[in-house]
Structures are given as structure tokens and as C-alpha cells.
């Protein structure tokens, strides 16, 4: 974490003294070094979590006094993902922002450092600070074209809703401190475990949930996301789509497993599972429908992100270790794919801006590559084997037990719907039917060099390849499941933080085997996505019907910040009410 932050300070402070080349080299070297360090940490934590106490303030007779980092495979993997994505974003932004100086790379690196802090910290307040740091850098990155209206609106919506989320989160942190007298996650869980959950715990869980779910963009806290993702610069979207939303869910999962899993048991746990599962299904469906009726490429991708967050939440809500591993794998694979999609769409947009919205067909091999990335990415999101998403989805379903059929159905609807929506939109642009509107300021900011530079395409292709390679790694399913087992093993987490050793060997879980039927099913989903895209394109009446059916839903997404805050608060109240009932 110190590496990216230090390099960011260097970049921002010494901007004038480093040349352009020096800046690029510093930024890329910092991202690479972080990726290597994260990979080492990930490797070292395979068997037991690494616990590090800042300033050597070790726990004294079972009482935590210091602040610690706990690196387990899940957090390590997230850090590695963030580092790789920021590398891609930095390479892309070399050409994207000519003449922005060292500030943009510096912001990307701060974002990276804060994400890693979030993934590794073992302290609830530190978690909140990292959450806010990620958010603040996110606002700045979104509003980078500060002279344009749409990104400004995206940044304001993002900033206001996420600040409200942060305030709610901070209140929850304070309430939990008041109850347990500690900010350390492990000790907090130890203090709460074994007591009957009461109203205060319900309120704290609801507020934590609402705070994190604002960031994870789960319905009804999701309204800011399409506004922000639809307007932010493409390299920013890479970081957002792959890391930012996942961080929200990661935070919720981390706090749930370490703090609440000991106190909320039995029927209450079942009810909470229902609440989160219902939220996940709602989010997946709303995201899918909105992706189908939306016509602008990047907003479609924004809603695709929303739909996927719904799927992850649904997988998490199963609250079974195996499914959690599947969710992690799914999130990582989709993260790479979505990042590649955002970059490729960014390339296409540049091209369209330059040619004034002419059809892209026949405009050269490099544009073809970008379109190919979009098409392949859409298929990967529709669970085309052997991408990582396909493996992850199969694990989630196999761990779901009695709910497997329902979850499979939701997954199929979402993957086919979102994949089809992306493909249809890409095909429309390829043929040149939709009218694009140029934005002069952005065009100016992005202008530079040859029409489609190879450097812009390389990261998109590489990130897509990462998603593919992740699915092909030997025993990736087993690794993911073992990582999840360690992540959700509260006893051993507490023991390794407070006593400095594992209490017992963790449960040995076997990854579900890959069956031919599930592979065929995933392949069928990809085919279904193509068929659905063709349907969307050919049947104009279907589009009209979809549009008419969703007038109300689309009106809700008008980007009005006051509405968004109202929905957030209503969501918080509902969640608190539901959890209150669940705890009875």
C-alpha cells in the first residue's frame, strides 16, 4: 500500500521535475511493483492469514490495542486484481489524456492504495477511512472533464449519495464501538459472539449494510452508478467496474463474517439470508431490464455492472462457503472482462467522435479488434466457457443447495439479457444506426496521435486475456473455495489476530467437479445471448414494447440527485425494519 501512495505523492509533488517519460515510468513501475508485492502476499497467505501489527502494538492478554492488517487469500486476490487493473488503466491513459500532467496517474495510484488498504485492514474504522478515501478519489476521477456537464452531474450524484452512505456507515461504526469497546474486527466479533442479537445489533447491521450497499450499487441504492460510470473517462471506469463496486460487497462480507456471524445464528440468519437474497434478485432483474432498454454504450455497461452486483449479492446471500468462493471467482473474472469492455467502448467512442458517427464497418483492422473485444467480452459475461465467469457461476450454483434451481434461473436471465444487450448495441454501432452526439470538450481532451493507437487496444486485449487465463488456471475452483473457507472461518480469524496462531486447521473443502452438463449449459447461455441480441435488433415491436413497459422504471433513473438520496434513506429504513423483524 505504501508503494502506490508514495509514488502518487512523488508524481503530484515532483510533477514539474519529471519529464513526461519519467512520469509514465514512475507510474507504471509503481503499479507493477504493487502487483508483484500483492502476488507475493497472496502466495504467502495461502495456508494461514498474514497478520501485521503497525508499530508492533501486539495484543496484550487477549486485548487488542494496535491496528492490524490481515491478509488472507481473498483480500490478497482483490489487491492483485486492483493492481492489475490500475496497470491497464495507466497504460490506456498514456494516450488518452495527453497533457494532463502527473495528476491523473497519481489519482489512479491513490485509488489503488486505498483499495488495498480496504481489502487488508483488520480494523473497522480503518475500513471506513479507506472506504471514504476510495470514494473521494472516485469523485475526482469521475469529474475529470470538469468543464463538461454530464461528467459533472455524474460526479455530483456519486459524491452526494456516497457521502450519505459514508455517514451512515460511520454511525454504524460508532454504535458498534459503543457496544463492544473496540474497533478491531476480530475482537468485536469475539465480544458479540454468543449473545442474543438485540435491537442495537440489528440497527448496526442495517446501517453497515446500507452504507456498503450504496457503494456496491444494490437496488435501491444504485441510482448513482449509471450516471457516474456512464460519464467517467474510460480508464477510470476500468478501476470502477473491476474494483469499486466489488469493494462494497467485500466490506459487507468481511464485516459479516468477522463480526456478525457469531451473534446472528439460527432462524435469524435464515431470515437475513432471505432479505439479502431478495435484494440481490431485485438488483439483478432491474439492472438487466435497464440494460436492455438503454441505448448508450457506457450506460448499458453501467447497468450491466448493477445486474452483476445483484448476482454477487445473491451468491453471498446463500451464506455458504463454497458459493462465496464462486462469487469471488466470478467477480474477478467479470472484473477483467468488464474492464476490457469499458476500454474497448472508449476506443470505439473516440473513433465515432472523429468520424462523426459513421458506421464502423470497414474502417480498418484496429477498430475491428476493438469490436471483437466487445463481442467476446459480452459472450464471456454470458458465461461462455472456459472464461473465469463460467467456472465461478458453476461453483455458486453447486454450493446453493436447495435454492440452486432459483439461482440458476436468475443467473441465466441476467447473463443472457445483459450479454444480448451489449451485443445488440455493438451491432447497432457497427452498422451505424444509432445517432451519436459529439461532445467537443471531451473530444478535445482525448485528441492525440493516430486515430486508434495500438497502445489503446493493448490493455483491452490483455485484460480480456487475463479473464480467460484465470478460468484456465489449474485448480482455480479449488483455490477459490479454499480462499473462501479461510475468509469465512471466524474462529481461526480471531485466533490468528489475537493469539497469533491458528486455532485449528480450517475445514477441508473440496471444489465441486466440473461436469459436462454445466459446461454445455454455460455454452447454451452464450448462444442464447447471441440469439437474444438478434431478436432485439430485428424485432422493432419488441423494443417498443420493452420501452413502453419500462417508462416508470426509466423515469426513476433520470439522474435527479434528490431522488437518489430519498431512495437511499427509504432503503435504509426498509432494511432496518426487515432486519428488526428478522431478529425477532
Amino acid at each position, binding site marked *: 500500500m505504501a508503494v502506490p501512495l508514495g509514488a502518487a505523492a512523488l508524481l503530484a509533488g515532483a510533477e514539474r521535475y519529471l519529464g513526461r517519460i519519467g512520469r509514465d515510468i514512475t507510474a507504471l513501475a509503481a503499479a507493477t511493483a504493487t502487483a508483484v508485492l500483492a502476488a507475493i502476499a497472496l502466495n504467502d497467505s495461502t495456508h494461514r492469514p498474514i497478520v501485521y501489527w503497525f508499530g508492533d502494538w501486539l495484543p496484550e492478554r487477549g486485548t487488542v490495542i494496535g491496528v492490524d492488517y490481515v491478509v488472507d487469500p481473498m483480500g490478497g486476490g482483490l489487491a492483485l486484481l486492483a493492481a492489475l487493473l490500475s496497470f491497464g488503466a495507466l497504460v490506456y491513459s498514456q494516450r488518452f489524456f495527453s497533457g494532463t500532467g502527473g495528476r491523473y496517474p497519481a489519482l489512479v495510484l491513490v485509488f489503488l492504495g486505498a483499495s488495498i488498504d480496504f481489502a487488508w485492514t483488520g480494523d473497522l474504522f480503518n475500513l471506513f477511512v479507506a472506504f471514504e478515501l476510495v470514494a473521494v478519489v472516485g469523485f475526482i476521477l469521475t469529474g475529470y472533464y470538469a468543464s463538461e456537464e454530464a461528467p459533472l452531474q455524474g460526479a455530483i450524484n456519486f459524491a452526494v449519495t456516497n457521502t*450519505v452512505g459514508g455517514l451512515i456507515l460511520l454511525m454504524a461504526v460508532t454504535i458498534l464501538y459503543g457496544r463492544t469497546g473496540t474497533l478491531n474486527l476480530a475482537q468485536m466479533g469475539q465480544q458479540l459472539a454468543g449473545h442474543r442479537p438485540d435491537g442495537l445489533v440489528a440497527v448496526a447491521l442495517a446501517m453497515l449494510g446500507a452504507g456498503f450497499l450504496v457503494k456496491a450499487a444494490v437496488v435501491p441504492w444504485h441510482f448513482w452508478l449509471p450516471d457516474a460510470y456512464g460519464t467517467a473517462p474510460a480508464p477510470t471506469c476500468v478501476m470502477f467496474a473491476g474494483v469499486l463496486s466489488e469493494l462494497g460487497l467485500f466490506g459487507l462480507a468481511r464485516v459479516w463474517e468477522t463480526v456478525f456471524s457469531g451473534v446472528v445464528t439460527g432462524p435469524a440468519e435464515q431470515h437475513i439470508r432471505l432479505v439479502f437474497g431478495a435484494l440481490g434478485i431485485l438488483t439483478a432483474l432491474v439492472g438487466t431490464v435497464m440494460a436492455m432498454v438503454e441505448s448508450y454504450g457506457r450506460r448499458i455497461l453501467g447497468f450491466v455492472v448493477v445486474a452483476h452486483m445483484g448476482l454477487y449479492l445473491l451468491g453471498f446471500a446463500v451464506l455458504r462457503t463454497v458459493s462465496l468462493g464462486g462469487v469471488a471467482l466470478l467477480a474477478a473474472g467479470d472484473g477483467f472482462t468488464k474492464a476490457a469492455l469499458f476500454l474497448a467502448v472508449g476506443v470505439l467512442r473516440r473513433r465515432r467522435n472523429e468520424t462523426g458517427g459513421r458506421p464502423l464497418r470497414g474502417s480498418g483492422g484496429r477498430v475491428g479488434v476493438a469490436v471483437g473485444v466487445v463481442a467476446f467480452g459480452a459472450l464471456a459475461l454470458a458465461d461462455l466457457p472456459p472464461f473465469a465467469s463460467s467456472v465461478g457461476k458453476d461453483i455458486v450454483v453447486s454450493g446453493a443447495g436447495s435454492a440452486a434451481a432459483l439461482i440458476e434461473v436468475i443467473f441465466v436471465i441476467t447473463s443472457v439479457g445483459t450479454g444480448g444487450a451489449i451485443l445488440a448495441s455493438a451491432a447497432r454501432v457497427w452498422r451505424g444506426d*444509432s445517432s451519436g452526439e459529439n461532445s467537443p470538450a471531451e473530444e478535445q481532451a482525448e485528441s492525440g496521435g493516430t486515430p486508434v493507437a495500438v497502445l489503446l487496444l493493448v490493455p483491452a486485449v490483455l485484460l480480456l486475456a487475463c479473464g480467460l487465463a484465470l478460468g484456465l488456471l489449474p485448480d482455480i475452483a479449488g483455490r477459490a473455495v479454499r480462499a473462501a473457507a479461510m475468509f469465512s472461518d471466524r474462529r481461526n480469524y480471531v485466533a490468528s489476530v489475537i493469539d497469533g496462531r491458528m486455532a485449528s486447521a480450517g475445514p477441508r473443502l473440496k471444489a465441486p467437479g466440473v461436469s459436462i452438463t454445466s459446461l454445455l449449459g454455460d455454452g447454451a447461455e452464450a448462444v442464447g445471448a447471441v440469439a437474444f441480441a438478434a431478436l432485439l435488433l430485428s424485432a422493432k415491436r419488441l423494443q417498443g414494447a420493452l420501452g413502453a413497459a419500462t417508462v416508470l422504471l426509466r423515469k426513476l433513473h433520470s439522474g435527479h440527485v434528490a431522488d437518489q438520496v430519498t431512495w437511499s434513506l427509504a432503503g435504509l429504513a426498509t432494511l432496518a425494519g426487515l432486519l428488526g423483524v428478522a431478529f425477532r
Partner: protein
Amino acid sequence: MSILAYSVVAWLFLIGMYGVVTSRNLIAMVICLSVSQSATDVLILEIGYVHGGSAPVFVDLTRRPGPTVDAIMQALSLTDVVLGAAVSALLLALAIQVEKRTGSLDPDDLRTTHRLPW
């Protein structure tokens, strides 16, 4: 007494949120957001308060022994104030840009995300 203190928190938070939802001016919205933020500060200080406690300056304890209020909570509220200042500054900067661009500070004049190029 303590019920009154906690109601102040709820009141500050809700009135601030009401302001955010109803403001027709971005600067007013930012101010309302900081009103809500101060609710969290008050809550933090209330949780850390010890009745009859003195300030947590531990070198003075030999002269005036007795309980002190919780120092951790004071540190938290300081951090929170810093974060709040950063967010407000950023939002105000965005508001200036909005004013430059559209000549208005009404958040409703900004609904342009639907007219984006692909």
C-alpha cells in the same frame, strides 16, 4: 438527559438529509450535507463521553487523577472532520464548475446524462 442528547443526533441527521433532498441550490446542498455530517460527530463524542471525565491528557493525570473521556473517539471525530472538509471542498469545486458551465446552481438544470454520445 442522554435520550435528549441522542435525539439531537437524529434531529441533525434528518434535518440535514431533508435539506439535501429539497435544496434547489448546490451550495445549499453541500451545507446541508455538512449539517448531517455534524450529527455523526456529535454521536461519536457522545459515545466517548464519560460522566465527570476530564480531557484525555495523560501527563496531567498525576495532578488531577480521575476518569478521562475516551481519547479514541476524539481521534475518530477529528478524522471525520477532515474527511468532511475534503468532501465539502470537492463538491463546492464541482458547484463552481457547474455554475461556469450552465450559469445556474440548480441541480435540476443538470440533467444531461441522457444525451450522451455512445
